[in-house]
Each structure stands twice: as C-alpha cells, then as structure tokens.
C-alpha cells in the first residue's frame, strides 16, 4: 500500500505535467480540460470541508458555486456594457478584474452560507440534506426568472477577465491561476485539520454530545465550517464562469450539488486530495467516455456503486489501504 502523501504528490505533479506537455505539443483543449478538473476540484475541496470534516451532507452547495458564477457574470456584464450596477441607493461600475471578482464571490457566498447555515444547521441527517436542497432550488428558480441577467438563457461574457501581469486569454496562465487557488484551498483545509478548530469540528462529527460536555458548541463549529466551505465553493464558481465565459442557472442546479458529492465520494471523503482525484477522474471520464457514448453517466454510476460497495474510503482509501482519513 502506498502512503497517502506520495499519491497526493503524484496527483499534484500530474496536474503540472499534463498541461505543460499539452502546451508543448500545442493541444490547448487538454489544458482547458485540466482547468475544468482543477476548478471542479476546488469546488469539491470547499464542500469537503463541510461534508468530509464537518459531516454536513449539503445537497445545496451549488448555491455557492452559482453565486460565485453570477458574481463574476454580473460584474463582468456591467463592465462590458458600461452600464453601472445599481445597488439601491448607490451605483457602482462593473469590473473585469479577477481579484476583485474573486473577493466579491467569496464574500457573497460566505454571507449566503452564514444565512443558510443559521437556518439549516438546526436540523441534521436527512432533514439537513433536504433543507440545503430546498435552498438550492430556490436560488435555481430565482436565477431562471431573473431576466435582467439572462434568465434561463444565462449570461455570456465576451472576454475572459483580467489578472494583473498575466494574459488570461491564453489557456495556460489561466490554468496556472486556478491551480494556484486550488493549492491555496488545499493548504487552508490542511491547516484547518491540524488546528484546534479542526480537532473540535472533527469530534463534533463523530461525537457531538462529547463536544458539548467539554463546553464547546457543535453548532457554532459547524456554522464556521459551513461558511468557510461555502466561500471556497463560491470562489470556484467565479473561476468556472470565467473558464466558460458563461453563467447560467444550471450552476445552481441540484445535479451540480450532487456531482460535487459524487466527486468527493469517488476520491475519498474527508481526505485532503479526495476531491482532487475525484474531479480528475470525473473530467477524464466525461471526456473519453463522453466521446464514445452519450450515456457515459451510466459508467460513472457503476464506478460510484463499486466504490460505495467495495471501497468506502474512495480511490484514496483503495490505494492507501486505509478506509478513514485519519491515523
């Protein structure tokens, strides 16, 4: 069996080597595919903080993904139409600057996670799943009916947004940005796991009564985890929108929430690189199998079934021979 950190290193190396090779042999589409994997991985890393470490099975994380996407879409739309964005009493201009868009995406999704978390964390188990799903559907139908920003058709952004000092129109620099942000999110999750907060959150998932009897409040711990989780997924939404130069209500769809969960389960729940491995496999299957058959999801389903039945620790569990993320 292989130590998890070696697998992680290989995965990371693969994410560097494959796009670099694609750049050399001039296959920009491969770089775009890799970017898609990295962005989905980032969204799933966000969810993994809530789901894997906190034990919060959110079937509504597409809310944050969509909010990040629309934060990008709306700001860039106003920038490209030169129409100011009206926020009630005052107006601001749109922007094409990625750092500002990212910040807005993070703040908006964190605030949404705070509000949704405050309401939904009172419940647990299947009720939590349902209430997060309900929030997801609310946002989804709101986006469909929001005609100012394209309604059902979504919003197209003509040019990718700017990052100081980089030509983001080329696939490689944009991939580099996404990979850097993914690494930052992984470092964030890793440091959280080692921190007092991570210890308490981990315990709150396994034995909430115990956490209460030592004088800590499990609900507050979960709320903070949910907010951090939502913020990371929101950032991924902004990148996803920039990758496609398009946002639409499907970013809010419950299928997307479900896919994020599937990515994590395939890779390994609660494991640092679980979502990364899951996202890579997902994109590879989507591309290769998708070229062979329109029904590639069936095969994804088979893989998911096999993993749930025979490899509870996901691919990482299978490779390391350890079912849980711990010890």
């Amino acid at each position, binding site marked *: 069996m292989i130590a998890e950190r070696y697998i992680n290193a290989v995965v990371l190396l693969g994410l560097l080597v494959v796009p670099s090779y694609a750049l050399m042999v001039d296959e920009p589409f491969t770089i775009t595919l890799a970017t898609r994997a990295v962005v989905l991985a980032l969204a799933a890393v966000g969810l993994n903080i809530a789901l894997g470490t906190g034990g919060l099975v959110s079937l509504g994380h597409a809310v944050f993904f969509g909010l990040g996407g629309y934060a990008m879409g709306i700001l860039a739309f106003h920038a490209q139409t030169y129409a100011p964005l009206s926020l009630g009493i005052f107006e601001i201009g749109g922007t094409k600057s990625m750092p500002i868009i990212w910040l807005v995406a993070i703040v908006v999704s964190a605030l949404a996670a705070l509000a949704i978390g405050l309401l939904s964390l009172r419940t647990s188990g299947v009720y939590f799943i349902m209430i997060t799903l309900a929030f997801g559907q609310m946002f989804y139908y709101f986006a469909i009916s929001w005609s100012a920003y394209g309604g059902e058709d979504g919003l197209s952004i003509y040019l990718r947004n700017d990052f100081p000092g980089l030509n983001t129109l080329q696939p490689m620099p944009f991939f580099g940005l996404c990979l850097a942000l993914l690494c930052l999110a992984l470092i964030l999750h890793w440091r959280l796991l080692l921190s*007092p*907060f991570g210890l*308490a959150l*981990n315990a709150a998932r396994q*034995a909430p*009564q115990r956490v209460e*009897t*030592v*004088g*800590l409040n499990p609900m507050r711990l979960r709320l903070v985890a949910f907010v951090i989780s939502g913020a990371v997924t929101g950032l991924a939404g902004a990148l996803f929108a920039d990758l496609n130069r398009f946002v639409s209500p499907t970013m809010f769809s419950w299928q997307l929430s479900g896919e994020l969960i599937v990515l994590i389960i395939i890779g390994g729940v609660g494991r640092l690189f679980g979502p990364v491995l899951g996202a890579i496999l997902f994109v590879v299957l989507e591309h290769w199998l998708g070229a062979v058959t329109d029904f590639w999801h069936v095969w994804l389903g088979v893989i998911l079934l096999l993993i749930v039945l025979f490899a509870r620790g996901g691919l990482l569990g299978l490779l390391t021979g350890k079912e849980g993320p711990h010890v």
Partner: protein
Amino acid sequence: MSDAVLSTKNLVKTFGALKAIDDVSVDLRPGEIHAIIGPNGAGKSTLIAQIAGALRPDAGSVWMGDRDVTRLDTSARARLGLGRTFQISALAMEDTVLENVLLGALGHSGKPWRLFRKVHADAELRARAMAALERVQLADATHTRTSALSHGLRRQLEVAVALTLNPRAFVMDEPMAGLGAEGSKVMTGFLDGLRQEAPILLIEHDMDAVFALADRISVLVYGQVIASGTVDDIRRSAEVRRAYLGEDA
C-alpha cells in the same frame, strides 16, 4: 443544602402520561460520592440528562453552587465546571486517545477558534491532556486510535476527558458498565481518590462498587426518591429492599 456544589430542586419531567422524574431533589456536597441507584426505568438517565443540561425539566431547577443553571445548555454547564461521563462511551472513535483528551483541554481553554495554529504544538493544551492521561494510566496509549481501545480503556478515557476540564463536580453515568471484576476494582480505586478533588454524583448498577464507594445513596424508583442516606441506612431500609433489591422484608 447551602454548601452543595450541585443540586436539583423539585425536578419534574413527564413523557406523555409517564412521570419519569417526579419531584426529585438531590444534592452533592464537597468531598463526597453520592450514588443514585434504582431499577431499570427508574428515571436515572432522565435525571442525569436534566442535570447535565441535555433535557429541559418541566418544573423544578438545577443549581451549581448558588447559581441557577436550569436554563443553561450542556456546554454552558460544562464551562461552569460540570464534568460528565457517559454510560455508552461518547468518544471520537476515529481520533487518537490524545486527540480525545486534547478536545477536553480545548474546551477548558475556551479557545477553539484558532484556525491556523497546530493543536498538537500547543504546549499548554498538551500538558493538560497528558496529565489527564497519566492519571488514568493511559499515557502509553497516547497515539492509539480510540476505536482500537478495549471497552475498559475507553471507560478510563471517558474519565480522562472529564478530568481535563478541572470540574467542580463530576456526574458519572455507570462508569463500571461492562467492566470485568478487575476493571471494576481499578475504577473503584480511582474514583475513591478522585472525590477529594471534586465530588461525584454516581449512577451505578454495580452494587459492590456503590457500597464500597458511596458516602450517601439515594434510591430512585418510578421517578421518586424513596430513600436517601448513608450506606448503612440504605442497607437497613425495609422499603428499599422491597422496592429495589426485590427481597421480602
């Protein structure tokens, strides 16, 4: 009554038509072990849940010293110095032994919000955690995964987590449950010494342990305290024998 560390006054809890706890007043004084005994279904678990804050009473109050804590939740009572152990071990099974006591130390410190410091590198937390492990003779098992511990060692770990809180009062729900004769003896010896540090409200089925340890015993039957007194009082009480020990007096 006045010097009681922990007390309940006229507690009542009903579930539908059933009066699970019916006007129960018990107290715990410094330096003592006060055992609550009673047959299955007598309301012991309900009583302990109300004392710990997991269950709201319908009437009556819970006091820690001269502070009314009836409206405080479990975590607030823990911060005031209530150290509880569970009948069925409630531990983070995937975590190591050390991590479980570190959680207690973290609760004691009241600082769980440091997001970027390494919990294992915090000397203060670690010292508190290790001290608790040493006291229950678990220092050798520091890095063992909790799920790999034997039942008896898990019970000891339960007590260690409570120790990290430096509680003013312990509330222990069947610490001997499932321990063999040997384990029971070890635990009895340990609790015997512990009472000087903080008094223990002990719920226990193991009568040998109760008679060996308790300074006072209260007998709970059908949600009511039918007798309360020293070990000898209880042994002699005809009513207790009839209601609980099942003997013909």
